[in-house]
Every structure is written in C-alpha cells, then in structure tokens.
C-alpha cells in the first residue's frame, strides 16, 4: 500500500516548488475563511467546549448510546448491520448488492468507505460504484485516492481536471473554465443518478435518541442518490454518535465553519426512515475504533467530526500534499488515527509534524492532536518501529547530554568541526547541509565566557 515514507513522498511533492506554493496558498485561503467565520461568532470557544464535552460524554457511554441508537433506528424501519472490520463492512454491502441483484449504484462522500477500500473490493467482484461527489469523481476517473477529506481533489489544478474530463467525458480539450467543467460533470453524473438502483452515503452525525442520521454535503449529491434509488446504505463508524438532536445545534454550526468557512453546509439532510417501498440500511463499523477507545492517551481522537480544519492549517500538510500520508485520512488527525489501524505501516506519520500545535487550536472538538503525535512517538519507539540507526544516535546523544564533562568535550569538538548540533543526530550524511549552513562557530562557548567574566 505504501510506496514511500512520508518524508520521501513529501520531498517528491516539493520538487515542483511553484505547485507546492499554489497548494499551500490554496489551503491557507481555506484556513483564512475558517478564521473569518469563527471570528464572526463571539461564542466560538464556548461552542468548541460544548462540542468537546458532548463527544467526550458520548465516548464514555458509547455502548449504551449505540444500543439506544440501534433500538430507535430499528423502530424507524432501518436495517442495522454491525461490522467488526473493513472486510466485514465490505462483505455486508456486497451481500446487499447481491441480494438486490443490483447493477447500477452511486456513492456520495464517505471517508469510512475509503478507509475500508470498498470501491476496490467491489471492483474485484466486478461491481462498479460511481462516486458522485465532484472531487471524488475526478480522482476516481484518474484512479487516484482523495488527498483531502473535505476537498478530495484539492491537489489538482483546473487544467488537470480539464485534461481528465477531456479523456473520460469527452469535453473540449484545453477548456479550463470551471463553469464548463462542472456543468459537464453534472451532465455526466445525471445519468448515473437517474439510473441508480442503490445509493451509498456516509453519515456525519447519528442521533441516539431519534435513531436518525444526518448527512452533510455541499453538492446535494447524497440526497440525489438516496432519493432516486430504492436502496440506501449509509455507512458510519461507531464514533459518529451524538446523544440528542438538539446537539446538532452545536455541531452543524462548527462543522461547516471549520471546514470551509461557510455558516452551514448547503445540504444538511436528516434521514430517519425509508420511504414506502425503499430499503434503508445502516452499516456500523468498528475497524479498530474500540481499540483506540481503550487507549487512554488516544481515545480523544475519536471525537473527530472530519472537518479537515487541521489539514488546512497544517504547515506540513500544505507543503506535502495528502498522498504523502499514504492513508485514507491524511493530515494531522490521520497521523494519530492510522498508527492504531496499523502501527508498523504508519509509524512514519506521527513524525511528519513539527508539533507546532496549530491543529489542536483549530480543532472544533478540541482534540489534543499535537500532544497525541508526541505520545505516539513514544509508543512507536517502545514498540520498536523506528530504524536502529536512530536508536544508536539517540543513545549516543543521551550519553553526552547526561554527563557534563563529556558534554563540554563534545561541544568543543563540535564547534571546531561544525558538525555537531545536539538535536541533529550526528552522521556524515547530515541532511541539514543540503540546503542550510551551520551557524558560524563562536570563539568560545557561553560557559567559557562565563568562567572568565563572572567567576
């Protein structure tokens, strides 16, 4: 699955510096829109507190709320399925497709189905699912993964989209007009919407007291799919729950403002029961979430409402692109979720951060993201998921830094050779020098100066 470690993929990304600047500025613009929207609400920090508190409470009582939600959903006539992991999730959906003898189906955005690699699984069974979110359709046509959880094709410029549509939708070559391109996508998708027998959607919020759920989109594509098809399958992770419908008043206000700076998503659609003649299925997935819930230091990560504010603010994400994280959910939140799913494969991710802390500050549910990145590093080292060269370097550094006499000696040699900085694991191929010089060596260290001038 992983072609490269984050650092290498990022290096490849940055090689095109003009494009990196464009990517950085595009996402910084979204961050600024988020700032403006947040500044517009004097009660912003209060809302974040409430959202965090509600999610915390829900996670502490998750089994009860899940049971209550199932009970109410069943009463509403929704069929509820439980999936232990990605494979079960995919099998359940495959089964529904087989039983309904379904050939044509559409899917709106669902990061969970990306996490479970549903499309690839179904493709292997000869079943094609059409993604209907514009960005997702673009990356689907290009056989790429989404690079951002809210803006799946944000790594592409309009020229790239134009080329892709020219190849697959037969649009005019070189016509980069966004209006023209979206209109072409609209026409292209219309046939699939009308013909779909089954629609898959994600879930943004599942409400325990009503047994209903809310799906937020800007394009209305979830609604189009679910309203046209006779079978609606909604997929959700166990952490999507909130206790009461009134709590939506907190979360819907935070979600769109944090995501794009909009006061609310264009469509916030409430689904409670199938319409006459329709089947409505809910697939509730664990896939490692209960394990994460059991990790005291990391349980908070399950509060995430997938707004991607932490992506947009992350100075590393903006300069390395979503694909460098080689996982369905990239960015800072992905870096604390993915080691739980596969520690070895994702051991590089918690290190793809300067721990600047901006992510934790924008997070609408107040996840201590950067602190969890730090804590994951400790876990990964203890579990043996760092290269042994790093271990030797660290051990040498520790020795020097815990022995004052050795330290003074090393410092002296270091200043002479200008090769040694304590935080830079010392070796001859030190990447510091690729694009940076070391500071000019002073004639004496501070302690030498102090010795002469103060004692």
């Amino acid at each position, binding site marked *: 699955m992983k072609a490269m470690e984050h650092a290498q993929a990022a290096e490849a990304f940055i090689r095109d510096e003009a494009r990196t600047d464009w990517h950085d500025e595009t996402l910084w613009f979204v961050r600024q829109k988020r700032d403006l929207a947040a500044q517009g609400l004097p009660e*912003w920090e209060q809302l974040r507190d409430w959202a965090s508190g509600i999610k915390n409470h829900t996670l502490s009582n998750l089994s009860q709320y899940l049971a209550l939600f199932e009970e109410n959903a069943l009463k509403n006539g929704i069929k509820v399925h439980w999936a232990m992991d990605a494979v079960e999730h995919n099998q359940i959906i495959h089964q529904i497709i087989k039983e309904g003898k379904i050939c044509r189906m559409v899917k709106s955005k669902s990061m969970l189905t990306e996490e479970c690699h549903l499309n690839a699984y179904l493709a292997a069974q000869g079943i094609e699912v059409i993604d209907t979110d514009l960005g997702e359709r673009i990356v689907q046509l290009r056989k790429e993964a989404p690079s951002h959880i809210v803006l799946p094709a944000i790594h592409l410029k309009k020229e790239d989209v134009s080329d892709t549509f020219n190849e697959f939708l037969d649009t005019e070559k070189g016509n980069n007009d966004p209006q023209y391109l979206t209109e072409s996508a609209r026409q292209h998708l219309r046939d699939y919407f009308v013909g779909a027998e089954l629609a898959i959607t994600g879930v943004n919020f599942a409400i325990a007291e009503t047994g209903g759920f809310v799906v937020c989109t800007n394009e209305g594509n979830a609604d189009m799919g679910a309203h046209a098809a006779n079978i609606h399958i909604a997929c959700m992770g166990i952490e999507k729950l909130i206790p009461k419908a009134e709590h939506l008043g907190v979360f819907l206000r935070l979600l769109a403002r944090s995501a794009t700076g909009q006061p609310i998503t264009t469509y916030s659609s409430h689904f409670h029961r199938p319409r006459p003649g329709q089947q409505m299925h809910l697939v509730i997935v664990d896939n490692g979430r209960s394990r994460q819930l059991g990790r005291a230091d990391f349980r908070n990560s399950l509060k995430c409402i997938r707004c991607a504010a932490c992506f947009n603010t992350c100075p590393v994400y903006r300069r390395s692109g979503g694909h460098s994280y080689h996982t369905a959910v990239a960015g800072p939140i992905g870096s604390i979720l993915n080691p739980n799913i596969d520690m070895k494969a994702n051991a590089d991710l918690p290190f793809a951060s*300067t721990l600047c802390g901006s992510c934790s500050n924008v997070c609408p549910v107040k996840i201590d993201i950067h602190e969890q990145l730090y804590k994951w590093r400790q*876990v990964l080292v203890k579990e043996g998921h760092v290269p042994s060269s790093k271990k030797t370097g660290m051990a040498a550094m520790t020795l020097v830094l815990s022995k004052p006499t050795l330290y003074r000696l090393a410092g002296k040699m270091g200043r002479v050779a200008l090769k040694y900085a304590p935080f830079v694991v010392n070796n001859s191929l030190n990447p510091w020098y690729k694009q940076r010089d070391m500071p000019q060596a002073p004639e004496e260290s501070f302690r030498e100066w102090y010795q002469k001038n103060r004692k």
Partner: protein
Amino acid sequence: MKIGLFIPCYIDQFYPKAAVAALELLEKMGLEVYFPKNQTCCGQPMANSGFEHLTTGCNRLFIENFSSFDYIVCPSGSCVMHLKEHLHLSGHDQQAKAIREKLYELTEFLTDILEINELSASFPFKVGLHQSCHGQRGLKLSQMTELVAPAFSKPEKLLAMVKGLELIPLNRKDECCGFGGTFCVTEEAVSVKMGKDRLSDHLRNGAQYITATDLSCLMHLEGILRRQKSSLKIIHIAEILNHQPL
C-alpha cells in the same frame, strides 16, 4: 532574588552572545544571577524523537543544578515548555514540581514577574518577530490566530519599549518555521520549504532582522539565509532588549 540561568546546549555552543545578553539584562534589573556549570540540556531532542524514556539523566542533572534557586530563567521557550510538561524524576516528585513552577522563559519573566514597563535599549531597525510555536502555543507568550480571543503579546510588549525599533507586520503572523527538532533533518524537504516561506514573508514586509524567543527556529532560518547569501539577519530577542544606544 536568586536566579538560576538555564542556557540550553545549542545556545551555549553556538550563540553565546544571546546568553550573555540574557545574563546582562537580568543583572541590570538588579538580580543575582547564577549559571550552574554542570547543566547541559532539557532532554527535548530525545523526547520529541520518541525517546522520552532516555531523558532520566538530563532530568536528574537539571534538578541537581537548579533546585536551589528562587526562579529559573531561560532564553528559549521551547526548552521551557518541554521541562514544564515533562520534567519528572521518580523519587524527586516534589523537587521536579517546584522547578516546573518556578521556571520561566525570559520574556514572560520580564513581563509577568518583574513587570517591567521600560527598557534603556535602542535598536533602530525594521524587525520581524517570528513567533516560535512552543513559546507561543505552548507557553502562551502571545495570542494565537486560531483562537477567538483577545490579542496580547509579551514579546511585542517588550519590543515596543525599545527605542527606534520598527516592528513589521507579517502576512502569516504565527506560522511555524519548520525547525521542529529532529524534524529538520528527518523531513528535510518540508522543513526547508517551511523555512524559506517564513523568510519570504519577512523579506516581503521589509524586515532587516528577524527576532524570536527561540534560537532553534532562528538557527534553522539563519542556515537557509546564509546558504542563500541573504543580507537579512537573525537576532535573539534578548540581544535586542539588551542593545545599548550607540
């Protein structure tokens, strides 16, 4: 008041002038300042790389060297933040806790403990302030642009007391410079790109000097500047605050 001066390893070795400035500045305020000579490092380089379990030696040294002071002052927000969050030593819980509480970054010590309102310094240049993340977001030395909360800035308050100094505005007031400890080598490409982008922001806005409460950020930025043969210079905030009229 007895002050213990903590000078992080890389300042001791590479930027002694900043340490001298911090010392002189505190002495000018009439304080008794000592530099315990067996100090080395706060342990952050190991801890941030996932090796916090190797920091026991550093922690012990720190406690031995600094327990006897009324306050401990350090011209690096990052090291202070690390110690405030992670200084522990089994069997010495009380001492570690006491140190965490009396440890201050230099600028916050000046504004919050000494509550100074004037300085005799002069620095007639255009200066860009780089907000080092650990000082800003970790120690809350200034308000963060992500939050909806009243603005304040301890370093800016002090810089405003310096005669002739013109603080330039930045397009991105508090974006990280990309240093990040071992990140600067393990993620070399991103680290340098972040640094270059910070530098262009300062250059675009006319800075002659970039200052900060952390030399680690400045060392990284200086590394790029020197490679690019730029005339923009870096200077630790202590050196500005201690800068005498010529």
